[in-house]
């Protein structure tokens, strides 16, 4: 019996991965729609984008991390495509090495898919963590404090953005932007896309209005993606939506495994209490 359990235990993880892979390959989502729930975050993002002027400059703080980027990637790509479709000029900057690596990959992809290169500026990587954010806030726009930031970024064409889009996940995410950039550039609206794990940390900033909009769960992202009309730039978005069935099966498997462990622990605790009572 114990051998059987051991074999089953060893088979469980590969079997789960096979089931998830099968669910991803299924063509339809069998009635499951991520975007049909609450769409308030999506409406907030659209409202923030609607407030942008004509042909705006948007500073993209790209500091996602490899571990969580898969969760936000479809939303990030749709949002970048949406901004380009609205005529925005995007200036990418990263303050973490990992964010820079992911930014390079996204910039390569935009180049491969023939996004308008005149709308995209690569400001590269800026070391210095929070100090770099402070320098960036001081160095942007016509009233820039000095030209050092231009020298560090290797360009004299520093943008004067009306909005900062922060792709979070790494140490220097939307929270750092709100803390370091917002007090120094009050006119700059900050919107963010972040993985679910950062949602509790960012919710207070969203509630206070320091973050103009936030997409931070797969549901919020799906609702936003369903709301955008990209027209010819549809090619810049992900061609296939994440499989709701695979997500549902994964979550259910996690709930079952953890529930089983919790239930087992509870049952053994109850047995221990009963045996103490009877003895």
């Amino acid at each position, binding site marked *: 019996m114990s051998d059987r359990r051991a074999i089953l235990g060893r088979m469980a993880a590969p079997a789960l991965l096979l089931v998830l892979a099968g669910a991803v390959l299924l063509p339809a989502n069998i009635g499951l729609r991520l975007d*049909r729930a609450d769409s308030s975050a999506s409406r907030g993002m659209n409202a923030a984008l609607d407030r942008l002027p004509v042909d705006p400059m948007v500073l993209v703080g790209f500091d996602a991390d490899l571990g969580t980027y898969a969760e936000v990637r479809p939303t990030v790509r749709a949002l970048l495509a949406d901004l380009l479709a609205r005529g925005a000029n995007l200036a990418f900057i990263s303050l973490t090495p990992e964010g820079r690596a992911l930014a390079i990959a996204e910039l390569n992809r935009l180049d491969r898919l023939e996004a308008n290169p005149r709308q995209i500026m690569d400001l590269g990587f800026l070391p*210095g963590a929070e100090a770099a954010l402070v320098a960036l806030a001081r160095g942007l726009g016509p009233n820039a404090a000095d030209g050092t930031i231009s020298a560090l970024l290797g360009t004299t064409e520093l943008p004067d953005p009306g909005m900062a889009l922060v792709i979070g996940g790494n140490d220097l995410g939307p929270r750092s932007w709100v803390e370091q950039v917002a007090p120094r550039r009050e006119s700059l609206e900050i919107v963010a896309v972040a993985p679910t794990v950062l949602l509790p940390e960012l919710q207070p900033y969203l509630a206070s209005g320091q973050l103009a909009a936030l997409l931070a769960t797969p549901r919020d992202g799906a609702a936003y993606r369903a709301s955008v009309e990209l027209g010819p730039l549809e090619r810049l978005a992900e061609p296939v939506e994440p499989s709701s069935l695979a997500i549902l099966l994964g979550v259910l498997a996690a709930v079952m495994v953890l529930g089983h462990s919790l239930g087992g622990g509870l049952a053994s605790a109850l047995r221990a209490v009963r045996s103490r009572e009877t003895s």
Partner: protein
Amino acid sequence: MVAVVGVLLLADLLLVNASLAEIAGVAIDAAILVAAGAALAAVASLALRRAGDLVRRRGDPIGAAVVLGGMAAVLIAGLRPGANGSSDPAVGWLVSALLIPMGATLFALLFVTTLAASRRSLATRSREATVLVTAAVVVLVLLLPIGGGVGAWLSGAAGWALDVPIGAVFRGMLVGVAILAAVLAARTVFGVGTTDE
């Protein structure tokens, strides 16, 4: 020095003065340069350590060779004559075709390994682990990707949980961290209570 720079940066945040901004800018730029130097030193230290492992055949020589090979590949791609630094297509290919897929594959295994770790932590009968896993199960249920009425209810419940109990805890933490940081900064700036105490 710390006191002077601290007061200078604080004054620059509170006052609008071009001369003050210029001096504060020098301090901030110096911090950026120090950070960049520290990052380079860390990379050099890693390379030396791994080269030592490789030469002396200690630790994991194959891993050391892979690390050094990877560093050399990116350096050659980005710094060879005529290259365009990190924006060079060769660096882009190394990052897009190798680094990110490999990293994503490793992190994809987190789903299985986290579940296994949670089971193991519950097996220790620790009260903290039980609370942690129970909270995780509740959050997972609230985030179930279901549409329609049930999905809307779950979404509403998730929103309430975020706004009220979780939001309260995080607001408290953020306020606490801010107060602590302000107190620590003030103590550092004014030289009160050094680590020698």
